[in-house]
């Protein structure tokens, strides 16, 4: 079992789905940074940290991981130096050990011409895979194991046969027979010891599997025609709870309902939790179809999760969307998505997209006359919200202008700042919005962008082809 080649992915990956890397755009004091953190698939393990400084006067950057909460969050180990690239001196990279499962943050300490400053980026540290041994390595270790076992038996046999003889004397028949008996008995002992070692290895692997992240599941039931009842189902993972959720820009759950496989109907909803712990949502009118549901939640520790399920729904005669709920049938625009009120959402970049590369995706809102929109508003405290979804639904990431970090987790890194996690500007909101993100693997993706202007939430959707 252990000698099979390859890596088994055991679960959809942590916060978001299939998109474990963290992308973040933020300010360390006067220095604007774009941060990419690639958490290790096994904890403890090494995370890769890439930082692009948009400021030219940065001299040095150090990085250090800290647990999100508790006494250890106040006692940082010695920070590691992020080294600047030779080709691009504003690009820094380094590695850090993530030593324990749970909610962590990476502290980025910047030193530059404008003095020292720091920034903290939340990052979940979760084991997400069970790796089996590569065949080559398996054969090498197996051969060495056989060699060692055979060597051990032979050495003990030789010791029994000759070790007590006087110098120069040859072993007699009785000694040789005794040696053979010892070797036979020892062979059985070595086989039993190897078997016991193998069983121990299995039990250690089982113990490790206990720590491998097992995401929450969504149990979604349609009641009374347009009433959605959602239960978070814990498959059992360490001491996780489902009643410890933090509001993330005002909502305990952000639910995306996307009609598959065409992804031609998209709703961004916000179910409310009832007294029984069940999340409830009055659905808007939706055409019949097969829907993928992605429910984003954030635990009290700052650990984000996306619970998923798929459902087949009949046509729903629902209620008009209320509050922050928004969406509906969408048409695809590349590079310009035409919105129902005549305005437009334009994707400003014409990028050749590659997997695992960080990008900043920029969009501009224009009014019906083709001019940059002047009546922009914040949507749930943000310039906009985006979701990056792979055509087969295996990748889903809910991203903000600050990146893929949930705002509730970000707020935990800045407990002294009551406005952490949302923007404060109320006037002069620009018509452009950008989202830092990187696709985890090649494929066809849809980018769902939502902005608010003139009191209405608009949804635009774009196609993206990502290559290796």
């Amino acid at each position, binding site marked *: 079992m252990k000698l099979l080649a390859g890596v088994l992915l055991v679960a959809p990956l942590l916060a978001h789905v299939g998109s474990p890397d963290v992308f973040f755009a933020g300010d360390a004091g006067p220095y604007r940074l774009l941060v990419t953190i690639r958490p*290790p698939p*096994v*904890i*403890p*393990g090494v995370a890769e940290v890439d930082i692009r400084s948009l400021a030219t006067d940065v001299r040095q950057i150090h990085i*250090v*991981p*800290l*647990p999100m909460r*508790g*006494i*250890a*969050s106040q*006692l*940082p*180990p*010695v920070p*590691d130096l992020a080294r600047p690239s030779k080709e691009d001196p504003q690009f820094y990279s380094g590695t850090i*050990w993530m*030593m*324990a499962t749970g909610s962590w943050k990476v502290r980025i300490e910047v030193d530059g011409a404008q003095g020292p400053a720091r920034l903290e980026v939340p990052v979940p540290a979760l*084991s997400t895979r*069970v*790796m*089996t*041994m590569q065949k080559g*390595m398996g054969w*090498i*270790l197996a051969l*060495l*194991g056989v*060699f*060692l076992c055979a*060597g*051990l038996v*032979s*050495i003990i046999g*030789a*010791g029994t*046969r*000759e*070790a*007590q*003889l*006087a*110098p*120069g004397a040859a072993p007699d028949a009785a000694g040789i027979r005794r040696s053979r008996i010892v070797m036979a008995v020892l062979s059985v002992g070595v086989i039993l010891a190897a078997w016991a*070692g193998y069983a*121990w*290895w299995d039990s*250690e*692997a089982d113990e*490790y599997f206990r720590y491998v992240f097992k995401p929450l599941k969504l149990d979604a039931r349609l009641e009374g025609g347009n009433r959605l009842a959602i239960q978070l189902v814990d498959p059992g993972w360490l001491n996780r709870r489902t009643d410890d959720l933090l509001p993330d820009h005002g909502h305990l759950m952000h639910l995306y309902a996307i009609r598959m496989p065409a992804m031609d109907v998209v709703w961004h909803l916000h179910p409310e939790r009832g007294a029984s712990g069940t999340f409830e949502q009055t659905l808007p009118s939706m055409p019949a179809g097969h829907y993928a549901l992605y429910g984003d939640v954030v635990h009290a520790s700052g650990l984000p999760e996306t619970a998923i399920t798929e459902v087949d729904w009949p046509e729903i005669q629902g209620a008009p969307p209320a509050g922050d709920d928004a969406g509906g049938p969408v048409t695809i625009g590349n590079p310009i998505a035409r919105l129902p009120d005549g305005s437009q959402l334009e994707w400003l970049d014409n990028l050749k997209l590659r997997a695992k590369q960080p990008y900043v995706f920029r969009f501009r809102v224009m009014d019906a006359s083709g001019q940059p929109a002047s009546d922009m508003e914040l949507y749930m405290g943000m310039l906009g919200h985006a979701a990056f979804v792979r055509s087969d639904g295996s990748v889903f990431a809910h991203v903000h202008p600050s990146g893929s970090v949930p705002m509730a987790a970000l707020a935990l890194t800045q407990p002294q700042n009551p406005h952490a996690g949302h923007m404060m500007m109320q006037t002069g909101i620009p018509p452009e919005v950008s989202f830092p993100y990187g696709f985890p693997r090649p494929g066809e993706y849809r980018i769902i962008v939502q902005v608010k202007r003139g009191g209405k939430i608009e949804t635009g959707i774009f196609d993206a082809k990502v290559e290796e």
Partner: protein
Amino acid sequence: MVGVHWDISWHRSIGRDTFWTPAHICIHLCGVLAGISCAYLILSTTLDRQSPLRNCSVGIWGFRGPLGAFVAAWGGIAMLTSAPFDNWWHDAYGLDVKIISPPHMVLAAGMMSVHMGALVLIAGQMNRASGELRRSLQILALYVGGMILVCLTVLQMEITTRSDMHTAHFYRLVAMVAPLVMGAIARASRYKWSATAVTGIYTIFVLLMSWILPLFPAEPKLGPVYHHLTQFAPPEFPLLLMVPAFVLDLLWQRTAGWGILRQAAVSGVVFLAVFWAVQWPFANFLMTPAARNWFFGTKYFGYYISPNSFLARYQFYRMEQGAQLWQEAALALATAMAAMWVGLAWGNRVSCIRR
């Protein structure tokens, strides 16, 4: 063993940063040196028909050499085998911060074999020698015995902390190793104060490590950090094994004519009773503020030790109760007697080795 204690202290103070830490290199250099020196002994004895060792060698797979050289070479290969296995283990299951894991046990088996090979190599020569040479080799054998005791106690380090010292299970764990080494070296070396000498070497070695390591600066490079450190965190104060060892040496000087079974049974009881009698009250002392100094070292903690842990709060784990206590105590006694018997029997065999 310096490398092993240094490496464990490195893990407790700094955390692992690369495979190529000086302490790690020190450990694996031991395997390489054992492999190279024993390979030379074996190849020179095999290829040179005039080799003075040829008459004092054993034959394995067409090779000839002293038995100890084969044992130590086996240990060196096992140690080197453990390196890729351990590396894969870290990739698959994460960096293990515990001592007792399958690849670490392969490493430990290798290290023990290097020690045993050295002991057998010395014993073969010692049992053919006399006079001053025998006396010198006897001292070397006692030193190797001390290092074997250090090695075995290191394996138990994380499950025999001072917080464990008021449980019967702790005494069972110590009974698995100390009587084994004391009995074996006593018979192998034929020295009348061997147990005292072996445990004395263990005590001095661990004391030196616990006093010298904190003299060097170190800061944690990994988190979570629960204890701020500015120097290496040393091992705990050595177990008071010298006391039962001294009593055993006295006992063995008066029971030389006894059979091995009877001697093992009585020695096992004596070891456990004396060790329990001294270590239990000493553990009480280790928990007091009076021990929180450089000498006894209870002020030092690894950076990752939780402040809520029993160790950090200077508290004992709860002792077993009722039937479980009696069961553990009985097992500790049986273990001490069995380990003593195995040690004495193996020591008898070693004392007869001439190749």
